[in-house]
């Protein structure tokens, strides 16, 4: 079992990561406020949903006038990813027993990454809790701060806040388009959404874009098992 230097590194890393995520949380808070959510709802999302991409998607769709169905539908599609993270963490966290029930709430990208980066199981479990708690704290503090800032802003379009919504997804996109199937999914998804706008009801384009998975899977099969 490693101790000393190894342990303190991932504790410090968790806090640093938490601070960075806190800034993203502030952005979410501002966008949620712009979308008309208010402190209670924005904070409820950060406390109860605790999944960045889904939260950004939901407030983005609401802010552009989309229906609740498409906001929730898009957010749910993105939340499905958390089950993959859960699967990856499953073996490492098996020793945590019943604590996995409340602990599951912390299963997101960053906690998974921090945990599987550790060499032994004990460090993996500890990294998961430290990262989870740090991120949960900073994410929610950031959200609250963002909503308060957002409320003081006046006309959001004067500040270019409407551009912050797509910009947040550009910033998050990188790792997902690092391979060919991801790039195909992205291009086809955008194309489907744009083409669908004049011919489908509000909210449909975002949900239809998920169909881009089909050509992306075909590309994955052609590229080979490594994908």
């Amino acid at each position, binding site marked *: 079992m490693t101790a000393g230097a190894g342990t303190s590194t991932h504790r410090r890393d968790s806090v640093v990561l938490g601070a960075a995520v806190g800034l993203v949380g*502030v952005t979410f808070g501002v966008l949620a406020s712009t979308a008309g959510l208010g402190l209670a709802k924005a904070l409820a999302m950060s406390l109860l949903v605790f999944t960045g991409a*889904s939260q950004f998607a*939901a407030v983005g769709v609401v802010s*552009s006038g989309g229906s609740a169905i498409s906001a929730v539908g898009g957010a749910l599609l993105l939340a499905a990813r958390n089950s*993959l993270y859960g699967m990856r963490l499953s073996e490492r966290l098996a020793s945590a027993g019943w604590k996995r029930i409340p602990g599951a709430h912390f*299963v997101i990208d960053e906690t998974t990454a921090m945990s599987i980066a550790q060499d032994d199981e004990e460090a993996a479990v500890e990294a998961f809790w430290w990262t989870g708690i740090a991120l949960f704290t900073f994410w929610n503090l950031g959200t609250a701060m963002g909503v308060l800032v957002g409320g003081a802003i006046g006309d959001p379009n004067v500040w270019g806040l409407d551009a912050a919504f*797509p*910009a947040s997804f550009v*910033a998050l996109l990188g790792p997902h388009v690092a391979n060919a199937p991801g790039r195909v999914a992205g291009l086809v998804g955008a194309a489907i959404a744009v083409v669908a706008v004049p011919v489908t009801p509000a909210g449909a384009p975002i949900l239809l874009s998920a169909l881009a998975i089909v050509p992306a899977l075909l590309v994955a099969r052609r590229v080979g098992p490594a994908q």
Partner: protein
Amino acid sequence: MSWAAILVLAVCSYLFKLSGLLIGNRIQNPLLLRSVSLIPPALFCSLIALQTFETSGQLGIDARFAGLVVALIATWRKVPFVGVIVSAMIATALARLAFG
């Protein structure tokens, strides 16, 4: 966004997380796993396109396009998250001032 929507989202997110944790590697279907991991690029890109070019069911180019270009450049140059957002906002605000 109603409270009901938030609660549905909260419950489903949690169930996704918990189910993965408890199922572990018992589900090995590569097709399913790969499909789920392809959802983010598809949805992120459609959100980027819609939130840049769409207004109330109409497509068009406006000041947000300046923000998109700047966001892409900033991300490519590895500017941190908040920097990407802020530079996109500044570009859009300026474009709106210049062109209306």
